[in-house]
């Protein structure tokens, strides 16, 4: 299953990529593929913007505005102002619903 087309903020800077392949390892959606000595994005619309690739790229070759794609969290954020709050807890807040 794929989500909306052409919305994802994922960027890869090939000039910084060392081709180590760590991003291929952590990506749960097979967004990247090895392309000779570097990596390229092969399935951009599958990206869920989890941020795993960016976090684990020690060369700073990947950028993505990561976050959780959860409507409840975004609506909560709109109502209360500020950041999305998913209410899944973890901030020792009252829990509502989601993950």
């Amino acid at each position, binding site marked *: 299953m794929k*989500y909306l*087309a052409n919305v994802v903020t994922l960027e890869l800077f090939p000039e910084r990529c060392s081709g180590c392949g760590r991003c291929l390892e952590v990506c749960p959606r097979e967004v990247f593929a090895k392309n000779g000595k570097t990596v390229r994005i092969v399935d951009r619309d599958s990206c869920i913007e989890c941020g795993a690739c960016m976090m684990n790229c020690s060369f700073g070759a990947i950028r993505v505005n990561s976050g959780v794609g959860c409507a409840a969290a*975004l609506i909560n954020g709109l109502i209360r102002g500020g950041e999305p709050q998913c209410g899944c807890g*973890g901030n020792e807040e009252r829990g*509502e619903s989601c993950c």
Partner: protein
Amino acid sequence: MAVELFDLPGGSGRSTAENVTVVPTEWSRQDAWGRLRCRLFNSVRMNYRVKPGIYAVGAADGRSPVLVTANYKLSFDLLRRELSGFDAWIVVLDTRGINVWCAAGKGTFGTEELIRRIRATRLPEIVEHRRVILPQLGAPGVQAHVVKEHTGFSVDYGPVYARDLPAYLRAGCRATAQMRKVSFDFRERLELTPMEIVPALKGFGIFLAAVFVLFGLQPEGILFHSAFNNGLPVAILGTAALLSGTFLTPLLLPWIPFRSFAVKGFLAGGIATAVLVFLLPAKALQSAYLQAFALLFFPAASSYLALQFTGSTTFTSISGVKKELKIALPLYVAAGAIALVLLVLYKLQDWGIGI
């Protein structure tokens, strides 16, 4: 809030030479019951925890692999259940009772906590090697190279699902491409639907009360038979919208056309409403105002509920959900306003103040 930390099923209360508690790999009846209750009740799910720290499985020794997980007890249970026949260490991070994926998103299953926990559990003294295995879905919270720098431990990202761990471990900690992918099959979606239905019931209660008052309200006061006779078809349509948004749409997700959850929910709710309006006895929804209300309001409600499921899926992105909300929220507000006007018109007609 007082949080209950579950007594770990120590069985005989065995510990290793390093004084680490040995946990069984089988589930007790309580563990299975706990899983079910987590899927049904928020209050249980939010407080289902094990104590962070280190645990042993089998006859773990200095060469045994180290698996890292969250302190949501269900995450811990799913992990240890797969380790039958293995000798291993389990390091539990303090994620405040949240599962690996969500905690990684919040950063509580994260670099800092992992570094802290490796030190606090005295892991470098317990094992001879310098590797820890993390679930792949913990990667959004962890910078493997920073962990290595601070602790000397390299991070291996294991399979997404605990069920693939035995094969991964037997293959010498190698994950196949298949193990790296998230799935979202029928059963997984089914297991998550109660968490959509149960929270929606609160709003549904308010809806039923409103239907009762609105349809019971007559110039003579609130009449029960009027509330029942006229309100019942609307209550039935409401139930259908609830189920179509929280149950049918999640289950039939891949087969409902369009990628947008709001559109999928609208379609499912629209079809359910149209079919019911057709099936209900003609006198149930005589008023054209009421029919128009039903065909507008219930598909919109189903759409809204379906949109909530984005948070439970494994393939939505925050940019995508933002886009959906930007378009859908104003439409929901407009649909709600028009629906209200239609109801007022219906009521005026009902009272014979006719327009």
